[in-house]
């Protein structure tokens, strides 16, 4: 599968959005419980964005608002978007599972959501993408067509 140009600034904005939303939900829920609703909403945003990139909220915010105004500069890199989409989808699935646990077992739900935020932060700050590594492992085992 051939590589194409992927704007890494869009990915960074997406990761920032994930970290910020989970943190607001996490801290906010301590004072105002309905703030937890942000977690299922984020799960929907990520899952919808995985299957329909034109509906990826944070990426669209970058393409439609931040990039045209020069607030965030583009960073095009020859890359494969499927890897990042897979990682985003995985984050969405984890947040969906977290959402299920939020009411009966809030500790589990919050921990799962926080874990997604930690991994998004690690990717944002250090460039290490766990979802991409899982994609590589699945490709190596022939479970997905990764090359």
């Amino acid at each position, binding site marked *: 599968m051939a*590589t194409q140009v992927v704007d890494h600034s869009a990915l960074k904005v997406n990761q920032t959005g994930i970290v910020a939303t989970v943190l607001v939900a*996490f801290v906010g829920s301590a004072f105002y419980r309905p703030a937890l609703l942000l977690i299922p909403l984020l799960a929907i945003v990520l899952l919808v964005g995985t299957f329909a990139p034109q509906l990826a909220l944070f990426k669209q915010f970058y393409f439609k608002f931040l990039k045209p105004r020069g607030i965030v500069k583009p960073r095009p890199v020859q890359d494969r978007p499927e890897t990042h989409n897979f990682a985003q989808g995985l984050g969405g699935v984890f947040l969906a599972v977290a959402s299920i646990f939020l009411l009966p077992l809030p500790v589990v739900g919050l921990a799962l959501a926080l874990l997604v935020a930690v991994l998004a932060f690690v990717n944002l700050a250090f460039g290490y993408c766990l979802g991409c590594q899982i994609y590589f492992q699945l490709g190596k085992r022939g479970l997905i067509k*990764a090359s």
Partner: protein
Amino acid sequence: MNAQLWALAVVGIVVLAAACLEAFRSRRARKRALGAVAAPAADPYILYFTGDGCTVCRTHQEPALAKLGAVRIDRVDAIADRTLADRFHVYTLPTTVVMSPEGRALHVNYGYTTAPKLERQLAEARGSAMQAATA
């Protein structure tokens, strides 16, 4: 507030456990891969395992390799050449292996490795190759 604190503790433990597991896995893979053989060459060289989906390879590892200057770098697609990747226990991308001229793995680096570290490893490899030649 209690749920938040417990969740924070759980995440802390999970992150710590994952870091320990990663350190253990990396150490074990390195131990197994050291001494593995590939093609011989005139000078020490680098086996560079990468893949189409490896972003860090493009954004970090390849610029670091470009800084090394005149060093032979054998680029290997870890998914297409699974036999070679398995021989060096490649479990993450990028992976760089500093090979001796005889084609033996001297240093195995899992994950992004900086240019100074690779230079140091190559200098060591050149040193041991010279020692072997003069002995």
